[in-house]
């Protein structure tokens, strides 16, 4: 296999690598370099300021608040999404009528999966427009109108949804309303993911458990869940990345792109405002670097914490 190997390798790698370096590596590298300057963004003037930007980060209260909001999503988003998706996947795959054949999926499970998966194929923009309409705050949005109609809500005080900064369980309400949207948009995908993993578990394992007298609930916690560990940890990592981002949701669905009064700021919106509105580009880059380090650490921790021997079947 030796002859002509290197020209071939170079030929195959040249185009992808060139694109990757020009459009991805070099902007990221510039971000790191800019984080040590006071660059304003679009002029060419920049002075080296050492670690000043990073020192400023440690004192920036808005940045800290945003960080906590990301941490909220980091905890709540995977927890709620994975729990719901596992629950539905369980119902779909083992919730059917048991018969002589043992455990069965429910009738119409294919149809359910098609419907649940819808939000995944819709553009983010469509979901934003839809939820913006559902969340209208003036009593004429769908949710407010329905709640007023059935008498749960005083017509003079419609729900303020993403306009509401008052805390609920210690977290501004606006973040909970955003959480609902992101969970709504993602449950279907992870349901299908877990469902596929459940179907690859051989039926005889369930039958053996049933013969030993295990109930379905027992079977789920003692057999299914441990065997799904790999898919659950992958889901956790992916949802973790979504939670660190959240940019489009906060940007498009909250007042002042992070409001009201900064109650829904996340990393990304603070960074974006520093860079594009306030022209503090060097500082924004330092935020970016801090966040990238955070993301890399998170990925590494998740992957090593969940790594273990695979069970082959």
């Amino acid at each position: 296999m030796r002859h002509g190997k290197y020209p071939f390798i170079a030929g195959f790698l040249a185009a992808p690598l060139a694109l990757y370096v020009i459009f991805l590596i070099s902007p990221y590298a510039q971000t790191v370099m800019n984080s040590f300057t006071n660059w304003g963004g679009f002029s060419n003037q920049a002075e080296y300021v050492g670690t000043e930007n990073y020192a400023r980060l440690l004192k920036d209260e808005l940045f800290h608040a945003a960080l906590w909001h990301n941490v909220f999503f980091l905890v709540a988003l995977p927890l709620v999404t994975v729990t719901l998706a596992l629950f539905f996947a369980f119902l779909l795959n083992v919730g059917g009528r048991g018969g002589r054949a043992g455990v069965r999926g429910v009738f119409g499970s294919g149809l359910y999966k098609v419907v649940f998966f819808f939000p995944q194929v819709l553009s983010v923009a469509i979901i934003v427009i839809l939820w913006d309409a559902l969340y209208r705050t003036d009593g004429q949005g769908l949710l407010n109108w329905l709640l007023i109609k059935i008498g749960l809500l005083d017509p003079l005080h419609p729900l303020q949804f993403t306009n509401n900064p008052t805390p609920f369980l210690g977290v501004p309400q606006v973040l909970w309303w955003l959480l609902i949207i992101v969970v709504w948009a993602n449950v279907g995908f992870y349901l299908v993911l877990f469902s596929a993993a459940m179907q690859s578990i051989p039926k005889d394992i369930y039958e053996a458990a049933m013969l030993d007298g295990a109930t379905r609930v027992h079977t789920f916690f003692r057999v299914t869940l441990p065997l799904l560990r790999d898919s659950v940890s992958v889901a956790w990592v992916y949802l973790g990345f979504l939670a660190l981002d959240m940019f489009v949701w906060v940007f498009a669905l909250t007042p002042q792109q992070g409001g009201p009064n900064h109650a829904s700021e996340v990393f990304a919106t603070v960074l974006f405002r520093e860079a594009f509105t306030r022209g503090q580009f060097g500082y924004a880059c330092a935020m970016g670097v801090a966040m990238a380090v955070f993301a890399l650490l998170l990925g590494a921790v998740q992957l090593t914490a969940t790594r273990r021997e695979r069970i082959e079947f």
Partner: protein
Amino acid sequence: MATTFQTPPVPVTPAPGRPASGPAVGGGRDLGGQVLNVFSHGFLVTWALLVILPLGWAVMSSFKTDAEIVRDPIGPPSGLHWENFSTAWTTGHIGDLFFNTIVVMAGGVFLTMLFGAMAAYVLARYEFPGNKLIYYSFVAGLTLPIFLAIVPLYQVVANLGNSVRWLGLNQYPMLVLVYVAYSLPFTVFFLHSFFRSLPTAIAEAAIVDGASHTRLFFQVMVPLAKPGLISIGIFNIIGQWNQWLLPTVLMQAQGGGEEKRAMLAQGLIDLQVNQGYQGDYGALFAGMTMAMLPILVVYVSFQRQVQAGLTGATLK
């Protein structure tokens, strides 16, 4: 042109009824199963409705006048107000948005697949100095959020555009190449493990028969990797269809009377901002419906492949 016939175009909710009390199986022993079955359908139907009803509501609202939308959000439209669709088509430029998106995605997905497969194949099956370094630099790209790079990226593109016009801001080829670059990390990561898992015997046989490395790749390895290529292809189609930040920053009008070549997601959000100010919700819903229905039709026709492709790609 308010027409008079009354057909609310609400999609029929495909919530399957439970089968009317089927034959009792296994005697009383499986009563738990029966209860669980009813319980299962209860929850599943509820979630299905939570997904379907808002979408159906938006489609229905796209046929209503603004006054109707405000007065009675859940009532049926008084007639089919197609003028919402023509407003969205003309002021929202939905047709242009579709055209731009399809042009960019055709190039973007094709080149991502080609370059991604080439790079992944070479990295997976050939030993050479620097192999690991290149592979890990692709993998590292997976974890970095795009907006960290967005302003330097804007500068890179603006500078390129000064020397090569079609690589500059608001140009299709530029956006295609940027999409490719940002789709490569996952594509390479996924296909790398796929090419690794292919048997070596076939490749050796082809080399013995005198095939060149290039021929071996295109005529032997690519066909063998077809299932993986389909998975990652679908993944990239959805990913690039959903892109919003990259086009929002890179596809802006550049003066000289040049229109901005907006992508669909970008244009819809613009429409949301503008129509929202004007209170023209009918047109907004109509634009949304036009953007939503084609993708839903494509998805429902290929749902098995789409689901398998997306989830398969994630689990690798």
